[in-house]
Each structure stands twice: as C-alpha cells, then as structure tokens.
C-alpha cells in the first residue's frame, strides 16, 4: 500500500488533522501501511464472523460454521434472541421437594420461583441471582435434555448438577433438621391469556422430573452444597 500523503489533502469543510508530522522514511511508512492492512483484515474477518454467527442458518454460515465458531467462541459468544422471534409468553413456576434421609420422609412442594418474585417485587435493582439464576438453570437444563429427561448435549450433566444445586440451596431452609437424600423438580407452565388462546390452552401444564439422588447423581460439589446452603 502506498503511503501517499496528498499534500494538504483535506476535503473542503473538514478540519485538517492537527499537527500532522509527515513520515519521511520508507520503513516507517511500511510499518504504518502494514498495520493498516492488518487492522483492515482483522476487522473484516471479525465483522464477517460476527454476522455469520448471528445470522440464521444459511449455506454460507453452514459451510464456515466450524471456523466461525472457533473465532467467536468463547470470547465473542453472543446471543440477541431475548424476546425474539416471539417473547416468552408463559409463566413458569419451578417447584422442588426433597426426600429426607434416612427414613424417606417427603417435604411438601416448595415454590422456588416465588422466592425470586418476592425479592423482585418493588425492587428497582434486583440482583443477578434473583433475576437470572433459576431461569437460566431451568432453560439450560431444557436445552440439554430431551422431553424424556435424557441428556442430549455435551454439558447435560453439568446443567443437571447445576439445576439440582440451585434447588437444593433453595430447599435448605425448608427441610428442618433432615438431610436431603434425593430431590424432585417440577415445572408448572401457564400460557398467558391472549388472542387466539383458548381456556383449555391456558390451563397450567405440569412437567415432573424424576427423583435425583443427591449422593448418587452428583460426585462432590452438590453434596457440599447441602451442607453450606
């Protein structure tokens, strides 16, 4: 690239650069020219990757998917699908109950979502635990498991342990002196009434997951959660 410096080359109406000291050596011009080329290249690559990463699947993005993902993840991971294409239009209540060791006594269902909703009520600046913890834990578990609760993704086990840890932590205030042997989670989904939604559709739907054994299903981390939580 030629480092041509058009004399006092400023378009009319544009302020001239303050005090430009012209480069007089070829090595310094090459340095600046090379940097400019490199910046151009990196910016073009990054913008193309960002576009393909966010665009709907198409022949181009599919062809370069692995390269794009290698460039974008994990540092430039992004997802702008909040409330799109359609906003979430259902209220989900997450409940959990525990079976206590050693006698297998059951606690009642505890509404975990209600704890967040109570904390958020009238609070202009709720914390991230209140706003994101249970919601993300639930949706990530859904993402990594099929409708029968079987793992589908690489992080399925992590997500299950995390959802259980969240449930155990929130249950800990409701179990008295017992030790939690296993835990069960259910989600009650209620479609928000709206145009084209019949009363039958807006009736609550319950999905109850299997019992998860605290000691069996989790190696080390979740057990300590019961103690500290």
């Amino acid at each position, binding site marked *: 690239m030629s480092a041509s410096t058009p004399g006092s080359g400023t378009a009319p109406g544009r302020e001239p650069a303050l005090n*430009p000291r012209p480069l007089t050596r070829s090595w310094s011009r090459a340095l600046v020219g090379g940097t400019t080329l490199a910046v151009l290249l990196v910016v073009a690559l990054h913008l193309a990757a960002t576009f393909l990463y966010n665009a709907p699947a198409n022949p181009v993005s599919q062809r370069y998917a692995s390269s794009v993902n290698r460039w974008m993840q994990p540092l430039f991971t992004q997802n702008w699908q909040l*409330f799109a294409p359609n*906003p979430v239009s259902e209220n989900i209540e997450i409940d959990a109950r525990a079976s206590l060791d050693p006698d297998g006594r059951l606690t009642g269902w505890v509404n975990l979502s209600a704890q967040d*909703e109570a904390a958020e009520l009238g609070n202009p*600046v709720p914390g991230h*635990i209140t*706003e994101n913890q249970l919601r993300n834990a639930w949706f990530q578990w859904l993402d990594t498991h099929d409708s029968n609760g079987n793992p589908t993704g690489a992080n399925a086990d992590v997500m299950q342990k995390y959802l259980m840890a*969240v449930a155990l932590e929130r249950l800990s205030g409701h179990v008295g002196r017992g030790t939690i042997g296993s835990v069960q989670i259910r989600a009650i989904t209620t479609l928000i009434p*709206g145009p084209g939604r019949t009363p039958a559709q807006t009736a609550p739907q319950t999905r109850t997951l299997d019992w998860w054994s605290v000691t069996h299903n989790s190696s080390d981390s979740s057990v300590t959660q019961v103690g500290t939580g």
Partner: protein
Amino acid sequence: MNPGLLSRALWWFGDRYETVTTRLIAARGLAVLRIGYGTLWVLFLLREWGEREAMWGPDATWSPALDRAYATGSGWSGLLRAWFTAVAGLTSAEFDLFYIAAIAVGVAFVLGWHTRIVSILFAFVVVALENRAPLLTDGGDNVLTLMSVYLVFTACGTHWSLDARRRGLRANAQARAALLAGDLAAQSSDSALDRAVEYAPDWRAELAEARRRMAIVAHNGAVLVIAAQICVIYGTAGFLKVQGSMWQNGSALSYVLRLNWFHPWPGLSAWLAGHAIAIAIAGYVTVFVQAGFPFIVFSPRLKYPALAVLVLMHVSIAVLLALPFFSAIMLVGDAIFLPDRFWAAVGRRLLGPAYAQSMSAGETNADGISTGRQPAAVRPTLVFDGDCGFCTASVHILESWCRPDVRFVPWQMLDLAAHGLTEQQVSKAVQWLPVAADAPIRSGAAAVARVLLRSRWPWRPIGALMLVPPISWLAAGAYHLISVNRYRLPGSTPACAVARENAVSAQRLGDLGGGAHDAGSGAGRIELAERDHAD
C-alpha cells in the same frame, strides 16, 4: 479508463488513508464508553457485594468443579480456558481480594488513569468474573464483556481522563517555561513538546510518529467494530422479531408485561398491558427501529429520532422489567453514534470553562502531542474593591482554590462609567461584568456564584446551586452580612492592600485585551509577550 478519474480515485484513497492513520474517530464518544462501562461495572460489583460469595466464590452454587466441567464440555483450552476459569481456582480470601481489585480497576478505568494498561486489566477482570458463572449472566453482561475487549484497542483515554489532565498540565508547564525563558520563537512553532521530540535522534522521532499512527489505526478499527457490533445487536434482535407472530399482531409487549420473572411493579405493568393500541404501536416502533438501526445510523436525519426511541425503550425496560444494568449498558453503547462535536459541547457544559482552559494546552491530536495553547477567549470580569484588604484576600483565595476562568479587576483600576458602574455600586459589592455587552451586570452573591460556575470542580455545581432560589436568598443574605462587617474581618488592612494591589492588578489588567486600559509600567513587558502569544 479516464486518467482524471483514476487520479481522483487515488487522491480519495490517499486522503482516506491519511484520515484513518492520523485522526482519532469518535475520541470523545469512546471516552463516554470508557466512563460509562467503567461506572456500570463498579456499580454492578457494589450492588452484588453481599451476594458475591454465592455468585462467584469458592462455595458458589455454580461451583468451581462445575465451572471447570463446563469449560471442558465447551471445548475450551489453553490460555482462553485459563482466563475463563481464573476465578474458579481462588480461595475465599483470594476471591475477596480479586473482587476488590476488580472494583479498583473499574474506578481507575473511569478516571482514565494510565488508560491503556488499565483497559487491559479491565477486560481481564470483566471477562474472568463474568465467566466464573456464565449461567448468571444476561444480555447486559454479554455486551459489557464484548465491549471491554474491544476497548483495549481504542485510545479511550484521550479525553476527560487523568491521562489527559496530566498531559495538559505538562504541556502548560512547558509552554510557561518557554514563555519565561523569553523564547518568543517557541510561540510561533507548534508546541514545546514538538520541539522536545525534534531534539531527539531522528529515527526515534520517526518511530514515535509511526507508533502514534499505528495506535490511531487500531483505534479506528476498534471503533468500527464497536459500532458494527451494536448494529448487529439491534439488527439481529429486530430481524428475529419481524418473524415473530406476536410482534406482527402487536401483542408481544402485553405478554412481556405479564411475565412473573420480570415483574417488579405489577400494578403499573397491568395498567400498561390494558392499553392494547398503545402496546401495539410501541411494539411496532421497537421492531422498526431495531431492524432498521444498521441503516438508520447512516442518515443524520433519522439517527436522532431512532436514538431517542431506543433511549425510551431502554428506560422502559429498566423500570418495567427491573433490568437497569442491561438497559444502561445498551444505552452507553449508543453513545458512539453521537458525533464528537456533540460530546465536546456536553463536556463544555458539564466541565465548564476552567477545565477547558486548563486543558487547552492538552488538546491533542490523538496521542499526547500537544498542539500548543489556544488563544484564550474573552473572559468575563469580576470587579472588586482593591482598597479593602479583606476583599483582596478573598479574591486571592478564590483564584488559587477555585481557579476560575475569570478576570479579577479592582474597581480602582477601572473606568467605571465606561462599564456602566458607579462608585457606590462597586464599593458596596463585587460586580460581575459578562462578556456580552447586553447581558446584565450582576452583583454580590450572584456575582460570586457566577465566578464559581466558571471554576473547576467541585466549585462549579456549588455555583450552580447558589443561583437556585431558596439557596440564592440565603447566599445573598450571607453576602450582605459579610460585606457590611468586612472592615472587622481579618486581613482588612487597606493601606497594605493598595500597595500590593497596584503591582498585581497591573499584571492582571494586561489581558484585558480590549486595550481600553493602560497596563501601566512595570509588568507591561510580560503582558505584551503574553498578548502576542494569545494572538
């Protein structure tokens, strides 16, 4: 091909090349991003202070073991994995130290203290902490993470920063030193700093210039990436919404308002959800502006209404969905689309003339090479009683503490009638002579308030407060009390004050500029030199 066309194309290309290698684009907008994101980061960490252990500590729900398993499952390796799981390896005490350090880095970033290095630290702590619990984050954290990385490549500390202040003071000192040395030739050259560079070996000056240009190119590239990233955010969100049936039939927002997860003010949300027409219009406007944003930013006429809609949207999200951090982070990013002259005007309005004057030597072309002192603008005048020792002492204190961009003149040195003043007025209270001839003359507390208004922080807001009615009445009363009793107050030795005042005021009168008053004998030479420089 037409040779004229070719040469014009080459000229255009060369001109663009010169621009992107010598000019920082959106330097003030980037300073706004730095201050904004840094402030939000600090506020966020303070907000979560009580819950920091539960969120990111060694006993957090998302345990270090889960964090590492997640990193493995996601296939991260090497340095990135070490960075992303850095906080997971900390003990409780180490984590607390890290947390406090993260706050300190945020503060240093806001202040613009050694900005380049601090910006790298800022990106490090933001990415490390946000990825300690990836499942606790929302869109706001996502944007903050991306921006913290992009900002590393920008020169976001050239304005409104301790760095800029340091450069301004240094250049001022050098200019003053050159002036005292009687080096008039220096005044005609560009600046003292330039000459310092010229004295250095040639190749070193050349390398410095090359480095400067490389930093500018990197900055401009990063600015483009930041702007494009924001367009991608809005564009993606908008285009995805266009496909959604609920956004199409205008009911989307009524569902959002009834989500229990984002429901801090149920009464307000229910009331809004009842207005189906308004909800539908708001939804459509949101989608249009979001989907159109990548194109709208190129149209100055559409840009500002679109930004106004986005501000409104984000304020609504902040309040109705209780997502203030998410909204604020998005709003800060929009700042990059406002032109630098807008931010320059905002800066002048907020910081006042005293700051502008102290920075005038530090007005840089991108990298710390000063452009020299700008000619000082005509300044307003405060007329005080030079016979009154107390008044003179007060003026000295005002000058040294508040450093206002105001000229202080004892009335004894002034042609009172020419300025529409009487001896009775000026001996009773200080008088404020504004720059504009038709602006009213103020006296007493109102005059003092205007001096403070042209002072450096934190006197400026105090001056503003002194002009607001209930406080202005109190100030006027206090001023009256003091002025009535001033001959009883310390420092009231009239004879001494007069003798000293003659020398000092002569010096000050020199920059009266108008030439209506003879500067007198002793200090005249320096005055002339200073005026030469100003011209």
